[in-house]
């Protein structure tokens, strides 16, 4: 909009579209009454027009064609437009919604006791309708939260009065959430996640079960004898470490010293003899070796503490130190986790001299090693299952982001918030292209006063032609009742003086009257009031001269007539500008 608004004709007002998708726009126009253009919310010439969108891309315009305006009048023009979420806000909303924290576990399933495993729980799928309702509720909650945040993030620009006028926003949000839930296909996702969670539940159960079995197997060790009627086996440092009977070491002078420390834990006397053998002069060594050989060939005379070399710890440990009433030394678990063979081999070497004890130990250690291996496998399965479930849940967010970005969702989300923006009110003046003088033609009834005779003559019915002189430019389009402006201006819109002449000369005493000073035309003066745009009533006076009743007297007498009339009040400008009759 720029320049003057034309008055008296329909006007199309165009406003650039400030948003991509105004859903509705209203143009309100009213005569300016207050300095600040305050909307009177009613009164004459206040109109509201719905605006339509025309053009495309950057050339989009809102437009409305308004009824003719009054001339020379200042109007206030107020364009309010309603719009949904802008593309930028839609993107932000899509990001927020895609991060919706959906607790898929409780949305998809219920936790209830597992009849197959007393004391355990299991996940049971909820009915499809409940899954859908649950996911939709979460999405609706997130939408509600996100829309509040967006409103805080993007206040109206300066000067624009913004009001959120979403009709029933809760329902629109529910509709958008329902659309997104349909796209997400919650039951299918719950089914897929349920399968993953089932794997995880089973793996979790197996981990805990195997850990308990390991605990039981470890407890079984506590019931084993801690001494054995066998000489200890020794382990020669590797790699790899090699377990062998103590008797086999006697011939390996270089290995004796490494065996002494180990044997010390089982039989300090024997350990001392081994040390002596290692340090014996070459002449004495064979005798000492033979004596020890004979001694080790038979079981010890009394049980000896069981001693095991733990390669992972790099040291020998008494069984009594490994297995205490309150706990098992963690080093044994670590050893069996790395490999059971070094320990089992040492136990196997005890078997020839004490079969019962060695077999009990072998069996118990093997069971513990089995439990450790099973627990390790189950932990790996659990890790895999948990990762698969977590990956499946994590994959939903980016998929949700893509779904929110679909056109159908954008259309639904756009309507979740309708904002009315009200830019500052503009005031505009209309042009003053109208005439203040109008030709007038009518018929009058005049009552002639014959001053010389001091009486009234019979009334005249005569046509007249004249000009109406208004003291303002006359609006011929706006209904008279709807005209606005100062009282003085309103008065002169309806009332005017008129001057003119009679179109025929009435007769008195069979002789036509004359104008003043015997003129051939009879002028009149009048004052008129418009009843409608073009019809007016007049009243006025006529000064005339008439003949004496004695024919031989040629002097004319002065007369005065008062008159009332009805006339058509034309408007030359209106005729030529096409406004006549609008």
């Amino acid at each position: 909009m720029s320049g003057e608004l034309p008055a008296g004709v329909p006007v199309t007002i165009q406003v650039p579209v400030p948003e991509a998708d105004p859903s509705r726009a209203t143009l309100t126009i009213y005569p300016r009454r207050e300095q600040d253009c305050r909307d009177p919310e009613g009164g004459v010439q206040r109109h509201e027009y719905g605006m339509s969108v025309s053009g495309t891309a950057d050339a989009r315009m809102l437009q409305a064609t308004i009824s003719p305006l009054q001339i020379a009048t200042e109007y206030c023009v107020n364009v309010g437009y309603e719009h949904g979420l802008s593309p930028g806000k839609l993107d932000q909303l899509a990001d927020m919604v895609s991060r919706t924290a959906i607790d898929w576990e409780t949305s998809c399933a219920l936790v209830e006791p597992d009849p197959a495993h007393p004391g355990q729980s299991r996940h049971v799928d909820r009915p499809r309708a409940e899954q859908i309702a649950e996911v939709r509720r979460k999405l609706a909650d997130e939408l509600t939260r996100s829309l509040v945040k967006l409103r805080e993030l993007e206040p109206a620009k300066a000067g624009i009065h913004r009001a959120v006028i979403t009709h029933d926003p809760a329902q629109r949000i529910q509709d958008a959430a329902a659309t997104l839930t349909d796209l997400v296909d919650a039951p299918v996702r719950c089914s897929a996640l349920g399968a993953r969670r089932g794997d995880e539940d089973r793996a979790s159960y197996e981990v805990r079960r195997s850990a308990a079995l390991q605990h039981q197997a470890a407890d079984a060790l506590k019931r084993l004898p801690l001494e054995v009627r066998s000489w200890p086996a020794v382990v020669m440092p590797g790699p790899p470490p090699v377990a062998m009977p103590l008797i086999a070491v006697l011939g390996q002078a270089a290995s004796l010293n490494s065996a002494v420390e180990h044997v010390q834990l089982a039989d300090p006397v024997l350990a001392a003899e081994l040390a002596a053998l290692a340090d014996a002069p070459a002449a004495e060594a064979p005798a000492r070796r033979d004596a020890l050989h004979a001694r080790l060939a038979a079981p010890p005379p009394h049980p000896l503490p069981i001693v095991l070399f733990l390669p992972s710890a790099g040291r020998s440990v008494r069984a009594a130190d490994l297995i205490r009433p309150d706990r098992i030394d963690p080093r044994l678990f670590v050893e069996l986790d790395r490999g059971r063979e070094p320990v089992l081999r040492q136990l196997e070497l005890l078997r020839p001299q004490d079969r019962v004890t060695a077999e009990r130990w072998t069996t118990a250690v093997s069971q513990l090693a089995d439990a450790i291996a099973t627990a390790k496998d189950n932990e790996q399965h659990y890790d895999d299952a948990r990762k698969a479930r977590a990956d499946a849940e994590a994959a939903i967010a980016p998929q949700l982001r893509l779904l929110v970005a679909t056109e159908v969702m954008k259309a639904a989300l756009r309507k979740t918030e309708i904002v009315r923006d009200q830019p500052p009110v503009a005031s505009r003046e209309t042009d003053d292209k109208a005439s203040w003088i109008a030709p007038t033609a009518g018929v009058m009834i005049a009552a002639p006063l014959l001053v010389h005779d001091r009486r009234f003559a019979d009334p005249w019915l005569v046509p007249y032609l004249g000009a109406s002189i208004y003291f303002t430019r006359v609006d011929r389009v706006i209904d008279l009742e709807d005209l606005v402006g100062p009282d003085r201006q309103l008065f002169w819109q309806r009332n005017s003086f008129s001057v003119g002449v009679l179109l025929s000369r009435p007769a008195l005493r069979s002789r036509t009257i004359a104008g003043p000073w015997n003129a051939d035309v009879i002028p009149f003066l009048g004052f008129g009031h418009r009843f409608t745009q073009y019809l007016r009533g007049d009243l006025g006076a006529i000064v005339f001269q008439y003949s004496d009743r004695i024919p031989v007297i040629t002097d004319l007498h002065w007369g005065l007539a008062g008159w009332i009339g009805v006339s058509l009040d034309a408007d030359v400008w209106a005729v030529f500008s096409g406004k006549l009759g609008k």
Partner: protein
Amino acid sequence: MAGQLKIVCGTVHSAERAFVVRVEISGAQPGDRVTIRLTQTAGTHPFYAGSQPVDITASGRGLAELADVVLHGPDSVAVLVADGEALRSDEAHVQVVP
């Protein structure tokens, strides 16, 4: 004290809904039995409290499952505590799997 963890209702878990809390322990002493306690410390009454013994495997790991955890309102906070006496490793730490 092995560690602690907060569970906040409304972010991942819904109020009034039973859910499963799995507690993973790592770095503990193999063979130990650790008691895990989950105690609600703030939020809406009635407060939840539950415990589970956990056997530590040879890899120093353990897994506890608290199956019927219910928190009754938003902003409820539950603190997870491992039995400090049973858990002898200073490096043990606890992780809750949502």
